């Protein structure tokens, strides 16, 4: 696998760089008063139950508890994740099917690298090059970057519009004998759409029929943010050649603590995919999550997620923006609201919003045109201030105050 120079990855690096430039410029202009509804760093205080779990973990530390742990993570927290997935996904996973990583970003990298490595083995064994990764878009910003950096070819397949649901026919058309993996985010970020079981089963049928037996990477980083009693169906529960990517930080609202995993379904056990993933952690120089967070994991898994504040803010954001005339995604989940940019130019709209004092994300970061994303993790006051500005920029003539 040849090293791909950054200079040839500009297509994937560019959009985020543009947003960072915009953010820096307007932070300076506003003397730090820019309302940041772009990045989902929560303004809310740490959940007291989570704080207590962290404190209890620290109080229990003894001996070498905070020293190095093996690649892939310590056995005990891996077992806890496996048990948790057994309960939530109905999969009979063992500890050694789970590879702990510092967050979902490295979990996604490891999953892709494992698929790429296995595909490279297939190619070396005489089959044609298997080097394409199908990615459902809009998607998390750096998924195509990771794919391209690994020397693979990102094949972007948009969701159905306007529903935002999976376009299984389009995915089927995109899959070739060269496809080594398919990446789906459930629920979708940024759309907030939760794919239903019927569409996931259709996808599974397509993947089962594919001659290259692609790995389905199910990015479930936002699965805690499923609202209104909706049923979460994991893509990995309906297709055997699946890996689950997850980040605990989002549900616990402490993303910076970097604790995630990739879990391979038991069907891969005989082929040693999880063991290969552990070796790739070593080969790529990925550290494990901190020993402290690994030790805290068992306690943290016991704490139910209280995301009611996010659900309430999300509903409010949808109502205000819809009243302001924005055309919004029908998705009802995640910590984001996604809508069509008035005028159709995502970056121009985001620039205009930033000029007015609120930062949102242009859909170019998610590899789609013409939309923007709002994060609802800010405090009520900041969110309201941001929404007031977005209302002024919306297609309707109603003011924010008139809406109240």
């Amino acid at each position, binding site marked *: 696998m040849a090293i791909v120079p950054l200079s040839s990855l500009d297509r994937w690096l560019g959009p985020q760089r543009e947003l960072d430039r915009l953010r820096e410029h307007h932070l300076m202009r506003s003397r730090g008063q820019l309302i940041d509804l772009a990045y989902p760093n929560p303004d809310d205080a740490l959940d007291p139950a989570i704080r207590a779990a962290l404190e209890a973990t620290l109080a229990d530390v*003894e001996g*070498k508890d905070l020293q190095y742990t*093996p690649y892939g993570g*310590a*056995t*005990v927290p*891996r*077992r*806890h994740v*496996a*048990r948790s997935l057994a309960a939530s996904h109905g999969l009979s996973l*063992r*500890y*050694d099917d789970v590879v702990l990583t510092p967050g979902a970003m490295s979990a996604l990298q490891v999953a892709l690298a494992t698929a790429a490595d296995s595909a490279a083995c297939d190619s070396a064994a005489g089959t044609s090059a298997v080097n394409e990764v199908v990615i459902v878009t809009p998607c998390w910003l750096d998924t195509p970057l990771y794919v391209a950096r690994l020397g693979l070819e990102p094949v972007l397949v948009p969701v159905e519009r306007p529903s935002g649901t999976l376009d299984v026919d389009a995915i089927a058309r995109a899959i070739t004998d060269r496809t080594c993996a398919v990446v789906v985010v459930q629920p979708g970020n940024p759309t907030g759409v939760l794919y239903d079981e019927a569409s996931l089963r259709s996808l599974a049928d397509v993947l089962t029929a594919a001659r290259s037996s692609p790995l389905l990477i199910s990015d479930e980083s936002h699965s805690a943010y499923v609202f209104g009693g909706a049923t979460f169906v994991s893509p990995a529960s309906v297709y055997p050649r699946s890996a689950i990517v997850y980040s605990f930080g989002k549900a616990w609202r402490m993303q910076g603590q970097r604790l995630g995993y990739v879990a391979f379904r038991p069907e891969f056990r005989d082929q040693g995919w999880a063991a290969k993933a552990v070796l790739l952690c070593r080969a790529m120089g990925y550290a494990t999550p901190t020993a402290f967070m690994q030790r805290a994991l*068992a306690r943290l898994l016991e704490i139910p997620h209280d995301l009611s504040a996010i659900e309430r803010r999300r509903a409010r954001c949808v109502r205000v923006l819809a009243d302001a005339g924005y055309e919004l995604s029908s998705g009802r989940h995640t910590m984001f609201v996604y809508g069509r940019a008035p005028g159709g130019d995502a970056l121009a709209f985001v620039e205009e919003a930033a000029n007015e004092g609120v930062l949102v994300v242009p859909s170019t970061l998610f590899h789609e045109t013409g939309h923007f994303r709002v994060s609802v993790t800010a405090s009520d006051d900041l969110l309201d201030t941001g929404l007031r500005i977005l209302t002024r920029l919306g297609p309707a003539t109603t003011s924010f105050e008139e809406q109240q």
Partner: protein
Amino acid sequence: MTITTDSSRDLPGREAVAANLETFIRERFQVKPDDAFFGRGVNLWEEGYVDSAGIVEVISHLETTWGVRIPDDALFDPRFGTIEGMSETIEELRATSA
């Protein structure tokens, strides 16, 4: 963590060894009370209840608590993967040394 062993020393039975070891493993290796997979017959290494560093702690706990030295052939015996098997081993070692 506090494991009371003094009274257990006087109990030569396999059950006492197993009960003590189970308590130690549950506490030290974060086994939840409602873990349906866990039991005295489960392979502690293969099922991820005890890791490679933990094996040393288990050996040390058994030797300290029961006043025995576990020989290499017992350590590498397949029985030494379960609480039941370890308890049998300790019981046999204590009987031999009595």
